[in-house]
């Protein structure tokens, strides 16, 4: 069955099993923080959150949201002071337990509806491990939808532009678009900037938020690497 998906669900389906080899090219922790980032972005688009003058995320009014996003909303609402997207991503990168809880809640509806499964396999035929596997039909629909909107003429929704930018930031776009198509898409995003200037204000904020996710991920990754080197030496 084809269902309406939220941004974080579309992102999750798109990055799961990126290649025919059924092997995801995105590390689990990165997949989780980008999915959380996607949820925050859509909550900004839907007006449940807003960015204040200093680009910090604030909860608007009473923090009511869909059940899948409640743990995330509760975490953001419980913060002592508003934080930037970069700070939230760093927080989730460094707090594995909290990240797992929020992520599991965000993908729960995908799992319940059978669009996303958890496969058990063994590394080197010895060590048990798990990986996510997406429903092929719905995954194809997400990618075809992205291609149909971004590579053809006509207006593009904010959700699709955000998905394209998230996939580009997490370096997953190359699995679905050729270099030529990616260049074409960059040009398309520039065109949209002039055509849909009113909506573009939100897109600019989102682009900045995505760049902050990328930067926070890189910093957290290098800290983790240096910690493991220091521990092993």
């Amino acid at each position, binding site marked *: 069955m084809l269902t309406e998906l939220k941004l974080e669900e579309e992102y999750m389906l798109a990055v799961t099993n990126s290649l025919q080899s059924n092997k995801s090219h995105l590390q689990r922790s990165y997949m989780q923080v980008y999915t959380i980032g996607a949820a925050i972005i859509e909550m900004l688009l839907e007006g449940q959150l807003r960015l204040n003058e200093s680009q910090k995320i604030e909860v608007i009014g009473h923090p009511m949201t869909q059940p899948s996003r409640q743990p995330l909303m509760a975490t953001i609402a419980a913060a002592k002071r508003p934080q930037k997207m970069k700070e939230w991503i760093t927080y989730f990168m460094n707090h594995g337990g909290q990240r797992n809880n929020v992520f599991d809640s965000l993908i729960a509806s995908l799992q319940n509806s059978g669009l996303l499964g958890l496969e058990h396999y063994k590394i080197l035929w010895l060590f048990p491990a798990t990986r996510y596997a997406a429903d092929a039909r719905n995954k194809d*629909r997400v990618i075809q*939808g992205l*291609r*149909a909107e971004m590579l053809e*003429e*006509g207006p593009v929704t904010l959700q699709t532009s955000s998905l394209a930018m998230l996939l580009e930031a997490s370096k997953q776009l190359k699995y679905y678009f050729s270099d030529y198509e990616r260049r074409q898409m960059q040009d398309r995003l520039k065109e949209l900037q002039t055509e849909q200037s009113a909506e573009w204000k939100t897109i600019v904020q989102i682009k900045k938020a995505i760049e902050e996710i990328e930067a926070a991920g890189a910093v957290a990754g290098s800290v983790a690497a240096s910690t493991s080197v220091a521990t092993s030496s």
Partner: protein
Amino acid sequence: MSRPRSFETFRQSDLVTISELVQLSGLRYSTLKYYVESGLLPFEQLDTGLVRRYPRVAALERLAEIKVCKEEYKMTIQQIIARFKGETYADRP
């Protein structure tokens, strides 16, 4: 596997394959697949797993309508899907 038909042949055929529709419409294969999955394009399929055939005239008309919706009315694909939802070719005048 049958040989591909010439452009002249399928240009006048009642039913065409998706590859032929790509050539007739100038749109991408992935775009047409998305339109089909979203219920925007009519097709005929004798049984599950068999090749889908698309009524050439009706499909090209629908693609022209989608183009007008996008270019003149600045509708997004989601709005176009909602606009045509539930409408079948049998309902049309």
